């Protein structure tokens, strides 16, 4: 009915203008959108395409298992076992503090630990390595893993990673050899030897694991996976399988190792031993007591464990006494004095010195151990019965000729690293006039060098510090005719099927020129010590089927402290193949404890069954 009023038959000019404006707006709008699309899709499409691809691809590192460590007969000493670890990835954690704490609270409830502890530990790990994932718990149980994976939405940043942990089937046996594996540190990454290692990788941190890390460490794999916006797995793009590290075969013989460890444990429980091939330097066994279970280090070490393992009152089980201790060696050093005296022409094998039980040099009286008089002795007999007076005399006379004794000690490997393939070896100390006078000048000692120092050194007392491996090298040089071998624990690198890939033997470091006469005189004396009447270890080796040469030693540790017992054995005599060094820190006379231990080790080495070592008691 009001059709008439609003009738608008034609287009009023005003309306036309306004519709035109509307149309223009539309045109401009479409033009803008069109050109923006052109810019985004045609001009910069590639850039966005790349971004889209980055968006969806995540690289998941697959840790490579390390190579296994085998003994010389192929028995597995260090293996791998797969384990699941809970980790926290820093850039996926909520940034909001309250929500982050919520994650830790949930984790704490799952693991039954206080959330504060988890948070502190994670923060500590982030501080150490800002972009690497922090491990919350290793060796988590399957139900926990399943729970975490099912509740990813509520646990942002928490991931489960399959890691390989080292396992040690023989537990305490050989613990000091293997060393530990741990995440590479930022500092290590800058070193050349860690080329190709990435943040978060686990590398050998000590022992054999460190020494041969580049072989044992495999190559990590990478799974490129497609994920959605929430990081959920959507499919695999490519897989690079991890390559397990090479196997490492050690020259260690597990049976000998076990025997050595057991022998040491039967004494005072603190000591070390080494068995070495005198010709090649291959170490057949090397151990230190007290030992520890290396699987403690397969996971994150608890502070309390670490304290216990380094506590001196507890015997500091982590200390490898075979290469890091530094003891006076007692009479076992006499072979060095003998060699120096014979080679410098101070004496001949026939020279005789009368031993009345004591000798006075520069107004000081030096006595034989136990005050025993051995009468007229030559160098062979002096070694056999361990006459101190004979060597006191040589010490005094060598002092008059300068530093010949020190020079020979050094040549045979004392006071320097042997170069064994274990990190952390200590060089020891051969006291010399220059050394003591320098200390005196700095007021670190009360007196300069005197002849008495050399007299003490001649019988392995005083300031001399050496460890069992150095003794083994020195005796090996005498036994093999002068080659100073480099002790080797690694025998060769192998692939998984046992095919050798690379030999690890080292050529001898150097040779010492020693006449056959000198050598024979010393070896005769050593053979006498275990077989001739009056020999210090003769009672110990009675009835032992393998002919052994050897030298006992008893190192004085000062008033009130039990003497340290030593024995160095060479066998089989005369075609010497092995040197055995045993020391027991508070074992008393060498013949009392160390020599019987050596016999037990030799029995294992030569597969002597049902050997029962009689306990000796003769003073050296």
């Amino acid at each position, binding site marked *: 009915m009001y*059709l008439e*009023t*609003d*009738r*608008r*038959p034609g*287009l009023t000019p*005003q*309306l*036309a203008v*306004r*519709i035109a*404006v*509307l*149309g223009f*707006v*539309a045109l401009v*709008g*479409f033009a*803008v*959108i*069109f050109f*923006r*699309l*052109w810019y*985004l*899709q*045609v001009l*910069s*499409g*590639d*850039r*966005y*395409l790349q*971004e*889209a*691809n980055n*968006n*969806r691809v995540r690289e998941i590192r697959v840790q490579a298992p390390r190579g296994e460590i085998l003994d010389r007969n192929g028995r597995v000493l260090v293996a791998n076992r797969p384990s699941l670890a809970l980790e926290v990835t820093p850039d996926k954690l909520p*940034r909001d503090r309250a929500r982050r704490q919520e994650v830790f609270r949930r984790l704490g409830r799952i693991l039954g630990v206080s959330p504060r502890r988890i948070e502190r530990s994670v923060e500590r790990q982030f501080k150490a390595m800002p972009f690497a994932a922090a491990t919350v718990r290793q060796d988590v149980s399957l139900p926990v893993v399943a729970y975490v994976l099912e509740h990813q939405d509520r646990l942002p940043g928490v991931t489960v990673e399959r890691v390989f942990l080292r396992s040690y089937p023989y537990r305490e046996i050989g613990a000091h050899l293997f060393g530990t594996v741990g995440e590479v540190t930022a500092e290590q990454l800058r070193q050349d030897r860690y080329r190709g290692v990435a943040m978060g990788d686990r590398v050998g941190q000590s022992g054999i694991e460190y020494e041969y890390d580049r072989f044992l460490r495999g190559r990590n794999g990478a799974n490129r996976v*497609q*994920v*959605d*916006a*929430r990081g959920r797995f*959507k499919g695999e793009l490519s897989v690079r399988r991890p390559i397990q590290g090479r196997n490492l075969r050690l020259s260690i013989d597990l049976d000998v190792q076990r025997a050595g460890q057991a022998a040491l444990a039967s004494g005072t429980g603190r000591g070390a031993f080494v068995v070495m091939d005198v010709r090649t330097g291959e170490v057949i066994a090397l151990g230190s007591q007290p030992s520890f279970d290396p699987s403690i280090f397969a996971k994150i070490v608890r502070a309390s464990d670490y304290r216990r393992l380094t506590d001196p009152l507890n015997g500091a089980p982590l200390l490898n006494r075979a290469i890091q201790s530094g003891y006076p060696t007692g009479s076992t050093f006499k072979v060095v004095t003998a060699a120096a005296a014979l080679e410098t022409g101070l004496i001949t094998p026939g020279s005789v010195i009368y031993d009345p039980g004591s000798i006075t040099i520069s107004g000081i009286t030096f006595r034989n151990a136990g005050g025993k008089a051995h009468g007229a002795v030559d160098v062979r007999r002096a070694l056999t019965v361990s006459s101190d007076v004979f060597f006191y005399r040589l010490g005094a006379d060598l002092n008059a000729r300068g530093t010949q004794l020190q020079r020979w000690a050094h040549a045979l490997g004392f006071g320097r690293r042997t170069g064994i393939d274990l990190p952390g070896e200590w060089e020891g100390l051969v006291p010399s006039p220059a050394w003591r006078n320098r200390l005196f000048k700095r007021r670190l000692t009360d007196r300069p060098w005197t002849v008495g120092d050399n007299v003490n050194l001649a019988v392995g007392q005083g300031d001399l510090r050496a460890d069992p491996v150095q003794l083994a090298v020195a005796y090996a040089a005498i036994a093999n005719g002068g080659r100073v071998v480099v002790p080797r624990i690694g025998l060769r690198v192998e692939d998984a099927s046992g095919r050798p890939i690379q030999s690890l033997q080292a050529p001898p470091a150097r040779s010492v020129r020693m006449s056959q006469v000198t050598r024979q005189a010393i070896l005769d004396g050593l053979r006498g010590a275990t077989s001739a009447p009056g020999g210090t270890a003769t009672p110990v080796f009675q009835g032992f089927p393998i002919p052994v040469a050897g030298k006992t030693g008893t190192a004085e540790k000062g008033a009130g402290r039990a003497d340290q017992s030593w024995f160095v054995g060479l066998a089989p005599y005369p075609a010497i193949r092995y040197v055995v060094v045993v020391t027991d820190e508070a074992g008393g006379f060498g013949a009392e404890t160390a020599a019987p231990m050596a016999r037990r080790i030799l029995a294992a080495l030569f597969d002597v069954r049902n050997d029962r070592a009689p306990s000796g008691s003769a003073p050296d």
Partner: protein
Amino acid sequence: MGLLAASIVVLLEATTGDIPGQPYYYVWRQLAYGVVGLVLMLAVSRIDYSRLREYRNAIYLGMIGSIVAVFAIGSAARGSRRWIELPFFNFQPSELGKLLLVVALAGFVVDRIRQLHERQTTVKVTLLGLGPATLVVAQPDLGTGLVYLAITGAVLFVAGTRWSHLAALAAVGVSAAVFALVVAPAVGVEVLKPYQRDRLTAFLHPTADPREEGYQVNQSLTAIGAGGKTGRGSEATQTKLNFLPEHHTDFIFAVVGEVFGFVGAALVLSLYALLIWRALRVVTLAKNLFGALLAAGVTAMLMFQVFVNVGMTIGLAPITGVPLPLLSYGGSSVIVTLLALGLLQSIHARSRELSLAKAVA
């Protein structure tokens, strides 16, 4: 029709597999809404739109009532109440409200055709639009609220309101926006919720906070850009791996961009351009002012939604929850848009009748 078909095709690409076990969930439902919408559209195109004028007050009240009802009985999703749950789908009154507002405003304006130059009329019309817009914004649904304002503006504009009034309105609008976005937060008054403010301004600096408000824009730009000239087809990872949020509703255009590339996006845009051009033509052809205003309101609604929606996916406009007409998944939106198109057809048909009548006479 082309757009509806496009919607089905795009949804097919976008949502297949979003809901495990029901790969074509969204597609089937959208198809159903489309059919319902088409039937309604045909029905509406047959009725004489002029009759609607008589019911304008009832329509207006009904619209306000239904929007208010949402507050009372609506169901909440993601922190906002926009829907009323019906047996088959969730009805969103604010969507239908857009169309009802067009009718009510057009009726109101035509009633006061003589007083159009008076300031009072302008203010009244503005307030009529502002009322429901405020209610919708309070749901909160900022985007749809802005559509209401766009409709109001367009009706005023086409009705012939004085330029000076329009300029004044524009000035008020701009200052209100400045106040809400800049001044109010500075003095601590919360006109908009902080997240709304952030979303409105995020497109200006999307990289400032790539995790939070800028995330959608960045993902959308990445999706569209990665589409390149001809699209990535089934390789469209942004879409398929859910990096792009809301890819079946508000960000559907980004899916078009990624899956079908520049070619596809341009094609869809041309369809919209065609639609709007046709709509504008209906405005010019309407047999009376009521029809012209109805058509103008609908056109403005379509234009605003297309520009704001597409604009936000390509980083040119703020992110507001405005569906892309016919393409975005959603029953209310599809059905209401089709109803609006039905209305346009009705206007067009009556104008043809008229010119036919003239020609006969």
